[in-house]
């Protein structure tokens, strides 16, 4: 390394499964600073396979953080709008990292581990998140970035069948319901398995050492139900599930209440406050917001994509933040922020795409029903 390298762009990183993806014929792209598989056999085929069977996603780019220290719950509640008094050992919950104005810095998962809290944050925002947490948390709180951990998501109606043949642990998978996690071993490797995901299907997120990732991925993809799935289908699956993607549907310019994520502001915090942005957020919960994030079914076959403007007559009333073609519905779908008076289900809107006006109707989300496992 010479001294004049300090202005170079950081090199694109490689994740533990890099060689494994390439050996399986994945098309690799740069995403969130890493080489990641965008697709294997094709986005639609992978999408449909996940909806009907099970898909294995490599999401090792995401940030896995472990917080520990004295008065941990109080310290974390000063940063997140979460009620940790109701988060029991073995439970996971959705939360939001907010700035002082209530804008969204990231969305994340928080899990109660013994003596610590485990966070999964978005890959593209993890370095900023770490900086923000370090700034807002007391020095006595230790923040470990578990950057040697890989993260695999096994998603789909047959995910549980395939995983049950390999995961050994005290808690049977039948008792591991949505948003719970437990410790297991797979092929002798210690793993943490959460029943959660980003597709709307039943499924699991498996955190494990990077060195073990290829062996476990190979083992799971050896099951007849399981194929590896790329980021392309991950995006079309989450869109059908009506789930927001940070950096597109959520940003510092959006509030979680506009986005319909009021469940991410836990009940006690809505009255007590004491988290960044609480004044605005708690006001919006009571008074409502001027715009709302809603689902749109688009007529015809032409997709409306991120950035397309939404109109009622001559008046611009909103903007698409995610859009594409739904393989399950065989039609274009989109998510948009629109003025609240036009956000009710059934409202007829138009989307401007390349000088054409596409007719669109506000519809309830998810576009494709969630099938989370909540117990037998």
């Amino acid at each position, binding site marked *: 390394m010479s001294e004049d390298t300090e202005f170079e762009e950081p090199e694109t990183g490689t994740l533990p499964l890099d060689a494994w993806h390439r050996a399986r014929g994945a098309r690799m792209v740069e995403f969130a600073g890493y080489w990641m598989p965008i697709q294997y056999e094709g986005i639609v085929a992978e999408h449909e396979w996940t909806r009907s069977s099970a898909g294995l996603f490599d999401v090792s780019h995401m940030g896995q953080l472990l917080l520990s220290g004295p008065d941990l719950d109080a310290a974390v509640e000063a940063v997140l709008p979460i009620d940790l008094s109701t988060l029991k050992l073995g439970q996971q919950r959705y939360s939001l990292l907010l700035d002082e104005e209530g804008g969204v810095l990231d969305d994340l998962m928080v899990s109660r581990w013994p003596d610590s809290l485990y966070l999964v944050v978005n890959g593209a925002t993890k370095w900023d998140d770490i900086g923000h947490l370090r700034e807002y948390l007391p020095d006595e709180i230790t923040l470990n970035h578990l950057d040697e951990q890989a993260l695999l998501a096994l998603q789909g109606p047959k995910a549980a069948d395939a995983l049950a043949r390999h995961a050994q642990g005290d808690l049977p998978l039948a008792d591991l319901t949505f948003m719970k996690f437990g410790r297991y071993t797979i092929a002798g490797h210690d793993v943490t398995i959460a029943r959660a995901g980003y597709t709307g299907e039943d499924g699991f997120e498996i955190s494990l050492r990077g060195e073990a990732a290829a062996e476990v991925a190979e083992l799971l993809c050896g099951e007849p139900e399981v194929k590896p799935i790329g980021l392309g289908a991950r995006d079309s699956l989450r869109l059908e599930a009506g789930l927001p993607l940070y950096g597109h549907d959520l940003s510092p310019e959006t509030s979680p209440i506009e986005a319909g994520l009021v469940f991410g502001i836990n009940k006690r915090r809505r009255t007590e406050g004491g988290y960044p942005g609480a004044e605005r957020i708690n006001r919006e919960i009571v008074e409502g917001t001027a715009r709302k994030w809603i689902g749109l079914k688009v007529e015809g076959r032409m997709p409306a*994509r991120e950035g397309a403007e939404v109109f009622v007559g001559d008046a611009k009333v909103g903007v698409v933040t995610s859009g594409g*073609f739904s393989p399950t519905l065989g039609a274009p779908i989109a998510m948009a922020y629109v003025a609240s008076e036009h956000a009710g289900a059934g409202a007829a809107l138009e989307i401007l795409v390349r000088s054409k006006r596409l007719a669109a109707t506000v519809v309830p989300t998810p576009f494709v029903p969630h099938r989370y496992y909540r117990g037998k």
Partner: protein
Amino acid sequence: MARYFTDEHEWIDVDGDTATVGITDYAQGQLGDIVFVELPGAGTALSKGGDAAVVESVKAASDVYAPIDGEVTEGNSALEDDPALVNSAPEGDGWFFKMTIGDASQLDGLMDEAAYKSFCDSL
């Protein structure tokens, strides 16, 4: 009938004073599953290298450019109902549009099949 290729991965079949245009097998492979094709209407004036059509895959919208100057005479209506023809038969039934040949000399700047193949191999 002669077939030429552009470095933007369009093909153009020349038959007398009309031509048929589509995207190559390489292009459809890069785009992935095609869900919609927006074709120019008959009578649209095209200029070499200018926007001619838009092809939408699941993941993105991509422009298709005119290989030469000319005027659109017909769009492939089969693509309206079955845009996946572009994936299954990109250099056959999945053609995009037919056009007049405004300036035949522009064809000289395009690649033949062998040149296009080595161009793709170099990518």
